[in-house]
């Protein structure tokens, strides 16, 4: 069974801090994604990656960056956290060419920025 693991379930940070959210998948998937989930807004794509060292901006990349140095790991970085980045962050992965749109999600990281 595919496992997508996010390093923290809950995280509390202060405004201006640099924040790292980590995600690891164990199924050798090519594609990895970061979404944020907000009530009434659904899931919005922040960044995604099709391969190691490759990244593409999603719909709301401002204030975020990502890193994919290894195939199994995709990190989301908040360069200077702000209160409007308080949200649930979901990582997902998928395999190209076999119904790539079947995304496997992690359990999420609830980030609070104070």
């Amino acid at each position, binding site marked *: 069974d595919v496992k997508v693991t996010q390093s923290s379930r809950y995280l509390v940070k202060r405004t201006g801090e640099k924040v790292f959210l980590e995600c690891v998948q164990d199924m050798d998937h090519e594609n990895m994604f970061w979404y944020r989930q907000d009530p009434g807004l659904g899931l919005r794509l922040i960044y995604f990656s099709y391969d190691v060292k490759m990244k593409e901006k999603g719909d709301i990349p401002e204030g975020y960056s990502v890193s994919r140095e290894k195939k199994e790991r995709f990190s989301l970085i908040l360069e200077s956290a702000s209160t409007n980045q308080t949200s649930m962050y979901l990582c997902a992965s998928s395999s190209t060419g076999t119904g790539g749109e079947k995304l496997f999600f992690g*359990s999420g990281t609830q980030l609070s920025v104070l």
Partner: protein
Amino acid sequence: AQRVTQPEKLLSVFKGAPVELKCNYSYSGSPELFWYVQYSRQRLQLLLRHISRESIKGFTADLNKGETSFHLKKPFAQEEDSAMYYCALSPRNTGKLIFGQGTTLQVKP
């Protein structure tokens, strides 16, 4: 613009009643459409995709290109269907998903 709209934030029905969760999309090409579900304290997971034309847990969804809709239906709701449901669209050959705002389905006993 590529967009998915789920007009209802909350849909509340009684057990045994029919359910229809609405989804409308905006996309210039031939869309690939999906329904994802998140049960309480569980991960978001794929429920069904239009290309498979399948029925999962009694749910079906038909793509109506004329009305640009992909509504999710079930003839008789069960309490265990209570969850958050997201409609999603995948632009061709991108591998990414654009999600709607989500609809909470509440099935009352």
